[in-house]
């Protein structure tokens, strides 16, 4: 009996919680024509562990990577509601640098129509259309990207991902450097978009800013659906591996489709990670 009572209380408490939650929802119903802010927080990790620059991570290719840099570009952000209606963030403002070394981990969006969003879509890198429109159409994004080592100058363009460090592998003697520069060139478009489902609805209101907490898994860049061994791509001088072109970039583009997941969403007026 006591046990049952406890259960009942628990159920009641739960119900109250649930009711109060829905009460919250009611209290902040969408006011048509209003807008709010949204934050996307990119929590960089490696196969479930936190990414700490300078730390070493062993992957399923049996290679140990000491990661010194993880910078990337996210772009063309779209927020999608339950009924499928999309809000596309203004293209000319929709290019962002995420940088572990720069502690640049948050994308802040403004002027998002109030509503309940269930999915987020974004691109990894810079799309060909915007690229061909020239740098000024990219809103001087070049300067920001250059600051975070995300530009190519020998072949003009952007590095979508700059992933660098050193590695050891049973296949090579001693420690070698690695540089993985993902991007497009005039032969291949490696820009990709991902659509991620939010585990909880992101409520955008004039006074409520959801923070969408994403987890980025740097491990899948080389160790995803496609396996790329750094040792297999070592340079002739045997000093290091630079992956900046060819088939590897196409494989990496496919891998990066699994690089991002939304872990949770903070709703409310005082959300975020204190950035």
């Amino acid at each position: 009996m006591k046990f049952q009572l406890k259960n009942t209380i628990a159920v009641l408490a739960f119900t109250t919680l649930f009711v109060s939650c829905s009460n919250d929802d009611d209290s902040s119903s969408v006011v048509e024509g209003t807008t709010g802010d949204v934050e996307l927080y990119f929590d960089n990790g490696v196969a479930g562990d936190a990414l700490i620059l300078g730390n070493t991570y062993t992957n399923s290719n049996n290679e140990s990577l000491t990661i010194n840099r993880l910078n990337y570009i996210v772009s063309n952000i779209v927020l999608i509601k339950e009924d499928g209606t999309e809000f596309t963030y203004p293209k000319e403002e929709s290019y962002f640098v995420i940088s572990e070394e720069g502690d640049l981990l948050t994308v802040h969006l403004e002027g998002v129509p109030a509503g309940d969003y269930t999915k987020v879509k974004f691109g990894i890198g810079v799309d060909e259309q915007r690229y061909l429109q020239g740098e000024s159409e990219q809103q001087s994004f070049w300067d920001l990207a250059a600051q975070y080592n995300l530009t190519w100058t020998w072949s003009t363009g952007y590095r979508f991902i700059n992933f660098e460090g050193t590695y050891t592998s049973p296949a090579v003697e001693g420690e070698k450097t690695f540089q993985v520069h993902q991007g497009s060139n005039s032969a291949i478009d490696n820009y990709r978009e991902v659509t991620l489902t939010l585990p909880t609805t992101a409520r955008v209101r004039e006074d409520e800013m959801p923070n969408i907490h994403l987890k980025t898994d740097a491990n899948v860049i080389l160790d995803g659906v496609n396996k790329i061994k750094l040792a297999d791509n070592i340079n002739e001088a045997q000093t290091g591996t630079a992956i900046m072109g060819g088939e590897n970039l196409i494989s990496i583009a496919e891998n990066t489709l699994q690089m991002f997941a939304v872990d949770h969403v903070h709703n409310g007026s005082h959300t975020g990670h204190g950035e």
Partner: protein
Amino acid sequence: MRTIILILSFACLFISCSKEEEYTEINKSIDFQVPVNFPVLAQDIEHNWPTEKGFELGRKLFYDGRLSADNTISCSFCHEQASAFTHHGHDFSHGINDLVGVRNAPAVQNMAFQSEYFYDGASNSIEMLSIAPIHNPVEMNETLENVVLKLKQDPEYIRLFGVAFDNGEVSSGNVLKALGQFMTMMVSANSRYDKHVRNEPGGDFSQQEQYGMELFQQNCTVCHKTDLFTDSAFRNNGLPPNPNLNDLGRETVTGFAADRHKFKVPSLRNVELTAPYMHDGRFGSLQSVLNFYSSGLVDSATLDEELKHEGVLGIPLTQEEKEALIAFLKTLTDEEYINNSMFYYQT
């Protein structure tokens, strides 16, 4: 009556003059025309349509050494107008600190009609392409961001950017835009050949030139297509690789072994003026180029199919045919282009 019109038009002129003074400077869109014998534009210039001030600013930048790290090497250093904007007499151009590159400076002409730039396609955008030579350690060895910092110190540039662009900023984007506008206007389409195909006065061909054109159409237009004289494709023409350079060509950009030793088909416009020839400037004369095509090719995994016919490599030609081809190629020289004061350095 005539006098009245004259006086009236003079008055109009005067009024518009004083208006210009009042509003300081007015920027006007340039009436850019595609030559009738040309294919359509390959670049979307709608979002960076050339304006008078944008073009003038681009020209000033083209001739400005401040685009290089030590302020000595301008674009015009390796791209001289008299040689159809190539570097006459240099197989490889010497850039900053007298460092030497591995490729022969390509002609700058008809840029908006091209879909790929540089011998390896390092850029496919008329606006973005300037990034490559500015940053190349053996060319200008500068960064776009630093160029902007230098230009911001110059009140003249602050004024010119202010007039040329809506946002008026001295910015990396506007530097590239201005250079893009200048290059958009660099159209060479008034050679004797052009006049010939457009049935304009001054387009007469000699018998030899006519014969040369026929030979050209039979043997060369697969790659040197249209009146641009290039298909913008990357091809291995069978040139024996220079082991000292080990230039992989298109593979450098794409990373594909299938692109090894492939280089962009160059336009042949003004070819008389753009010696030396080939991506590494190995041939000093058109005679040597044709000797190569006739009997100098080497076979390899990526040799272009068009240069292999029933086991025969290249394009067999008699000396008479070579001379006729050269005579034809010289009709592609565009005196108006190389002497057009619009592209001169102006102080």
